[in-house]
Structures are given as C-alpha cells and as structure tokens.
C-alpha cells in the first residue's frame, strides 16, 4: 500500500466522486457560518428555490461585526444590526443552530467551534473565512471559502475542488523561554514568504508542535493562509484527544473510543512523500514582530529592518513610516490589541496576565483585551485574570473579531501604530491609515507596559513562558 500523508487520508475519505480531467466532489462534515459572508449565499439559494441540504451540519455565530461593549443594547450601526438580524432570520428559516450575540456560547467562529467540540480530528470543515485553517490543529482538513462556495455547501454539503499539493514544515528542538506559538508561525512565514504555500495544504511536524497545547497549535494553523496555504494541519495525538473529550458536542462514551481509534490511524505514514518540505531549528526562533504590510515582513524583535529596493517593499515601509535598517526597539506605541482568532484563547490571556501581574500599563497606551468567546471571557473572570488586567489599567472588552479587521467601532486611528496579536498587518486593516505590528500576546503585553517596543527576552528572567 502506498504511504499516505495525514492530508491524503482525510481528503481521500471524503471524496464523493471525481470528474474526469477535472475537480473532485469533496464531502464537507461541518460548515461554520457568520454574518458577513453568508447573506448573499442564503439569497442565492432563495433565488433558485433550493433548500439547505443538511442544516444540522451547519453552525452559526455572530462575530465579525459585533460590538465589544454593551452587547446587551441594540447595535447602533444600522448596517451592522441589519446584517446580524439577517443572520438570525436566515438561521431560523433554515433550522440552523445560531449562537447569536449574548448567547453563552457566542464567540469568534474559530474559537467557539473547537471549544464546543464541533471541531474533531479527521473531519472536513469549511467557513466563509480564510482563517478556517485554525481547525487544522485537530488533524482536520479545514479551509476558507468564498460566498459562492458557501452557497454550494448549503445546497449540496459538497464542494468541487482540485486536490492541493502537499507541503510539510518541520520544526525540531526546544523553544527558548518567551518564544510562543505565534513567534513560531511568524518566523516560518518570514522565512517562506506570503505565497510559498499557495496551492498547497501544509502539515506542521516535529517536536515543537508535538509539545504545543491545542491553543498553540490553533495559533500556528490559523496563520497558514498568511503564507498562501489554504490550510495547515497537525497530526492528532493524545493532546488532541484530551482536548476534545468531554466537550459539549464531542462524541461520548463508546462512540468517543471508536472515533479515537480511527483518529489514531490518521498521522502521516513513515516515508510518505510531500511535494515540498522545509525544516527549521527551534533554537533559531526568537520573539518576532512585523515591520511591513504583509505578514511575511517579520523580523526577530532584536533585529533591524532589512534593506530591499523592491518597489512594493519601499511602498510598504513608507506606509509604516519606518526606515530600512532601523530597529523597532524603543518605538513608541500607543495602541495594543490582544485578541482575534489567532490569539484570543484562555492561554493567551494567561500569558499576558503572567507578565502584567504587579505592573502598570504605560499612560500613553490604550490596551484592549478582547476574548475570543463568551466562555473565554467567563474563564478570564473566574481565574482572576480580570483583576490583574483591571489593576494594571487594561480594558477587558466583550468577545468578537474586534480590532483585527475593525468592522465594528474598535478602530485604530489614522497613523497610529498598534502592536496586535491578530494575523494581518495589511494597510488599513485595523482602521483607515492604521499601522499594524503583529506579535505574540507576550510581546503585546510587554509593549503595553513599557509604552514602547522592548526586547522582551531581557525582561522575563524570573518568569517561565513555554
């Protein structure tokens, strides 16, 4: 029998049919939807008089457009309110489970779905959101789709796709203190660039990922799309099974054991061939930051911005108001955002709290902490992290996508820098004219305390961040 990758195994198990010289029909186990990319798909079905084929395989949440303050009040922005109302109406009409604003399970789609046990190894999952790659942390084929494809899955629970090529990124060794999963993925993207993964599905392998928690693995897989890969995967193991077990919608009892036995067969066979392979050494990774307007423009926090004559590079630095060759250490920063589907899970806030405890936020900094879900918000309170944040002058807001894409009121003002734990530093991503510097929750917390970028590795001798 030929050797198969994790991706091959999951993909092949979901192929319904193949078109000669064309794409395959891939069956989708779970379809996640939210308010921004679903309304036109519902309209499409209605216009054609087609019913939603498998409503019980769809889970909906409101996240992109929701306010992070006063969620109990009617939404002020009429367009946003209308979009959320449409989602509610569409879900009701089509018998789709919706965790709407205010629901105890509401949250960012890529935070709440794993949390509730919807995400399980060996599945195929899609969502009209490119960061659907997050769910690959469970050994799941998960990827973002456009709205036409949302309509296709509504209509048939399937997609027409050409099987992507395979890519493996291996990182072995021991990460230094203060180097977090976010640094690992920013490092990888800085080495490989923003389009090296285009046309590929990526598997992350090696002991660095094996030793990561599920939260860390989700952070890594989340940003696969930032190097162009449709999705990223990590082989399911005991860490995965322990995370899934006992969650509300996870399989129970014998069913769980049966499923787990199958999940154990999924890891890539020894000797399976990948179309492309890269390997990195964990010891070479340091806390990272970005200096430009795409996530591939990242450096170690202690390094200087590289020199490059390329017109797009020059344009990017111009936008950021940075100069080639300069260091970002001591740059004054007035905004810090800890949140987004990349870094808004409980572990991210534990890291931030550990650093912040007993310190005070710098006066010049506005620091927003936005949990990924209601459940994370509750956890922050019950674990006493909120007290630490309050005492230090940080603002804990309500869950949602928030300042990651600034569709709601959480916008970074024109010209201001924001050290952000989100995933994209595109021009204006966090508000018109805003300048985003991507970093880990630890670097973000340290920036908020110092009021400027500092080399965090010099400040954590007494604290352990694994």
């Amino acid at each position, binding site marked *: 029998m030929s050797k198969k990758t994790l991706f091959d195994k999951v993909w092949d198990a979901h192929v319904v049919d193949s078109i000669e010289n064309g794409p395959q029909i891939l069956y989708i186990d779970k379809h996640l939807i939210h308010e921004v990319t679903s309304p036109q798909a519902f309209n499409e079905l209605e216009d054609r008089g087609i019913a939603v084929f498998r409503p019980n395989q769809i889970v909906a949440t409101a996240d992109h457009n929701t306010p992070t303050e006063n969620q109990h009040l009617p939404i002020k922005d009429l367009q946003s309110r209308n979009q959320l109302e449409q989602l509610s109406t569409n879900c009701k009409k089509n018998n789709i489970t919706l965790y709407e604003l205010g629901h105890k399970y509401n949250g960012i789609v890529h935070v709440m779905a794993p949390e509730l046990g919807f995400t399980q190894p060996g599945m195929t999952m899609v969502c009209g959101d490119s960061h659907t790659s997050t769910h690959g942390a469970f050994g799941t084929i998960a990827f973002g789709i456009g709205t036409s494809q949302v309509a*296709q899955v509504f209509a048939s629970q399937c997609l027409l796709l050409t099987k992507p090529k395979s890519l493996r990124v291996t990182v072995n060794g021991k990460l230094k203190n203060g180097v977090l999963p976010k640094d690992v993925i920013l490092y990888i993207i800085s080495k490989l660039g923003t389009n090296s993964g285009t046309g590929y599905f990526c598997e992350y392998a090696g002991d660095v990922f094996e030793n990561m928690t599920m939260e860390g693995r989700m952070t890594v897989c989340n940003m696969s799309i930032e190097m162009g890969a449709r999705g990223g995967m990590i082989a399911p193991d005991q860490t995965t099974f322990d995370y899934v077990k006992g969650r509300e919608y996870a399989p129970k009892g014998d069913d769980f054991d049966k499923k787990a036995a199958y999940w154990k067969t999924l890891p890539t066979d020894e000797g399976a061939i990948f179309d492309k392979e890269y390997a990195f050494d964990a010891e070479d990774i340091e806390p990272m930051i970005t200096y430009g307007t795409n996530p591939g423009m990242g450096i170690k926090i202690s390094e200087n911005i590289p020199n490059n004559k390329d017109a797009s590079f020059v344009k990017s630095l111009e936008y950021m108001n940075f100069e080639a060759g300069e260091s970002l250490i001591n740059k004054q920063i007035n905004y810090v955002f800890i949140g987004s589907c990349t870094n808004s899970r409980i572990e991210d806030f534990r890291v931030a709290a550990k650093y912040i405890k007993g310190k005070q936020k710098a006066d010049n900094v506005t620091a927003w902490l936005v949990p990924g879900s209601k459940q994370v918000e509750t956890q922050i309170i019950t674990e006493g992290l909120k007290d630490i944040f309050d005492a230090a002058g940080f603002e804990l807001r309500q869950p949602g996508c928030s300042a990651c894409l600034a569709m709601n009121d959480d916008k970074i003002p024109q010209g201001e820098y924001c050290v952000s734990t989100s995933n994209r530093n595109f021009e204006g991503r966090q508000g018109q*004219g805003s300048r985003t510097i991507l970093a880990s929750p630890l670097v973000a917390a340290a920036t908020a305390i110092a009021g400027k970028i500092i080399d965090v590795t010099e400040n954590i001798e007494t604290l352990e961040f694994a």
Partner: protein
Amino acid sequence: MEKFTTLTSRAIPLDIANVDTDQIIPARFLKATDKKGFGDNVFRDWRYNKDGSENSKFSLNNTDYSGSILVAGDNFGCGSSREHAAWALVGYGFKVIVSSFFADIFKGNALNNGLLPVQVSKAYLKHLISEVNADPNVKIKVNLHEQQISISSSKRFENFNIDPYKKTCMINGYDDIDYLLSKKKTIEAFENAVD
C-alpha cells in the same frame, strides 16, 4: 453567471505586488447583504486621499487608462476569503485580471463570478505593464478557447493555464451549484455508506 469567450480591451496597470483583498475592498464596506454596489468602493483607500479627494496618482483615476482588464503585480488577491473583492472588481467593470500569481481563494472566487484570472510569466507581465505604460491605448486580447493572451502593439503572446472544468463553466456560464445539484443521488449514497 455571465459567459466568457474572448475579450479585446485596453488595460489599467496596477504595478504593485501582494495586493490583498483588504485593499481591493476594505472591511468597513462588507456590511451589505447583497452583491450590489461594491464596485464604487473597489481600492477605496488607494483611490481617495485622506480628505476624500481623488488620488490622481492612482492608475484607476488616471484618465489615460481605461478598459476592462486589470494588469496587476505578483500574488494578487492574497488575504481574506471575502468574495466581495471579486464582486467589487466585477462591479467596477473588470472582466479579466492579469497577474504573474494569484492567491488561491481569490482565484476561485473570481472564476465563480465570471471574472477571468489570467496567470502569465513574470517576464510577460513586465512586458505587458511596460507596453501599457508606453501607450495606454494598446489593446490586449484574451482568448479563453485558445487560452492565449496577446498585445496589439508588440504582437507578443503567451498561453495561460486554466482548469478544464472551470474553462467549460466560464465559456458556458455554468456554475458549480448546477453541477453539484445534478449529483445529489451520488452524494446521498456517499452519506449512507459512511454512516
């Protein structure tokens, strides 16, 4: 979906690499619940200055250029999966985007909206941009049947790849839903076999 076979048009150059979908259509315009009107805001923050006036340096505002072909830098359409980006480009009047590389999700979204992504070599892209810059009246011809792009001035042409299934869809104006619905029985059989 509108059919696409051949197109001869002038072109608008956008010589910038890594144009992401946040630039094509910024997130604040994603609150609509239909597909209309996105064309007005395509490349919004590049087309307009901070004070709301038109940025005359941006190629879409340069009256020398016009046409339904956008010639863009490498890795066009990276970032978010928002199909609003394709709707915005179509809404503005583009029918073809030429680049040396397209991001995956954008490419699929474009094809699902009758917007043809034509991927050419870096050398051909460079030539194309310099020809359009030298003479904005130069005509570009895109022939989907032949999978060929050519330039009226230099006569240089290049062949491009497209998935044969997607080519058929574009030429006939079919979309994937039609096909998938015709496979309902096979899909149900698959579901039963897995259970």
